[in-house]
């Protein structure tokens, strides 16, 4: 059965995050209390990396169940890590854990259990900084992901297939994204094809469409194109979505359109949680 390989240190899996860094990412995101899209996306990616690291922490170290890359696309298409990992593409999770660009101290508000709120200081490691400049070379970003993963899939033939998550607020301005996306998702390990999940985030207060199984409700050609190039969710991921009270049909795709801040975070969580990690 595809998408059932055990994720282990011998056979790790891989995440690639493709982050739109075009000029429009300075605009506020829907449901984000005026926060800029680029800031919300950077926070979401940093928090996701943090959670993944804690999930894979054992004893004094990290078990390298995953390798990952962050690719930014805007004024240029390039690896997006800051700090010691700047310029690196696919990095084992333990290296990510040990090399944040900086560690911020943030205030977290917690329920005090008596109707009030208490504030608690928490560490917030940062690997990826917000950038908003230039156009939307999504095709180029998918091309780079294809380049990185074609070697990876050959080396890691027994691994759970890589998951590529593309976060963008607009149409590709280069020559994409269909042929590049098709090439990317034709790569495979013995456990299945590379999964491409697309999240379109919006500044407008519109109802998000999440994990659709058809393109009937999608408003335009751009949305339908992103739907078409998004992978059908494997059963395990569909189960995770069901646990989040999302009722998905069998053909549900890894696609969200007009996602607000909450849907972005939920989508990333479902797309990166695995039940087969050992």
């Amino acid at each position, binding site marked *: 059965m595809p998408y059932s390989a*055990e994720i*282990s*240190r*011998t056979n790790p899996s891989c995440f690639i995050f493709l982050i739109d860094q075009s000029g429009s990412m300075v605009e506020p995101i829907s449901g984000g209390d005026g926060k800029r899209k680029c800031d919300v996306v950077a926070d979401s990616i940093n928090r996701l990396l943090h959670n993944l*690291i*804690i*999930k894979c*922490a*054992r*004893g*004094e*170290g*990290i078990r390298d169940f995953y390798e990952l890359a962050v690719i930014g696309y805007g004024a240029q298409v390039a690896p997006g890590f800051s700090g010691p990992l700047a310029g690196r593409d696919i990095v084992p999770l333990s290296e990510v*854990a*040990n090399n944040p660009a900086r*560690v911020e101290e943030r205030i977290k508000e917690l329920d005090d259990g008596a109707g009030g709120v208490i504030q608690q200081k928490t*560490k917030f*490691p940062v690997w990826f900084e917000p950038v908003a400049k230039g156009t939307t070379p999504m095709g180029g970003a998918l091309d780079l992901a294809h380049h990185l993963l074609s070697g990876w899939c050959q080396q890691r033939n027994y691994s759970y297939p890589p998951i590529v998550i593309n976060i963008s607020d607009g149409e590709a301005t280069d020559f994409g994204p269909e042929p590049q996306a098709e090439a990317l998702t034709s790569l495979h390990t013995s456990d299945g094809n590379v999964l491409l999940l697309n999240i379109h985030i919006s500044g407008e207060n519109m109802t998000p469409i999440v994990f659709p199984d058809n393109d009937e409700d999608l408003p335009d050609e751009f949305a339908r194109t992103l739907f078409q190039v998004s992978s059908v969710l494997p059963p395990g991921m569909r189960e995770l979505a069901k646990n989040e009270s999302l009722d998905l049909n069998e053909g549900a795709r890894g696609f969200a359109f007009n996602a607000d801040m909450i849907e972005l975070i939920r989508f990333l969580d479902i797309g990166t949680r695995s*039940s087969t990690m*050992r």
Partner: protein
Amino acid sequence: MEATVQVFWTPKKGNTPDEYEDAYGCDVEEGRYAISDGATESSFAEIWSTILTQKFVTTPPVGEPPEEKTIEDWVTPLQREWHANIMWDRLPWFAEEKARKGAFATLLGMEFFDDESDDDGVMDKLLFMFKKQKTAGPRWRALTIGDSNFYQIRDDEMITAWPLTKGIQFTHRPTLISSNPKSNDTIWNQFRFQTGEYEEGDTFILATDAIAKWFLDRVELGEKPWRVLDQVKTEHDFETLVSELRAGLKMQNDDTTIISIHWEEDPEDE
């Protein structure tokens, strides 16, 4: 009666023996045995499972069944012991954050009594004496939380499976006991307690979930998996069996542990 005890364990495939997170404890003299499956998703689970099993075989919670408060009071010093075993100031940020969430584990503890043995604690002894007048013959009692299981075999039949009785009942989310008190708020009423009798010739098999599930799956197919385990005489035999079952997808790849206790006539009683 005299017990012949064998323990076999092997880590999950792909892990080294020092990454084994199950634990077991045996005190043959006192007739106490315990097995624990440290949750692999948590950190320092091997320390927690070891503390739980060692404490059970030296000083199990008293009472038949132990009250919720008794169990909670029994666990509190063990949580402090776990905390003291970790070199907190040496941990990198992620390891500290993970460890602060606490370690998690199952626990299955069994005690065997026959007419000759002493019980533990004055109150317990009184309770036991009371029981003994009512029930003739040797008895066992078991306390558990989570999905470690035991089987009692008599005359080539399984006469007890506890606490789980069907393979399908093994889920990936058993209730676990944590080294972090904050995570234990809702678990105290989920401890389960059971007593029963045993006699010469009986075999008890205590098992962590992967092999415990395999065992019940085979029973449900009309097979007698205890015969397979009976052929296991050495660690090598056990590792070979587990490898074959994993490769044949009959057993999940997980830390795997069994304690086998076979009761025979005591030669000194002859």
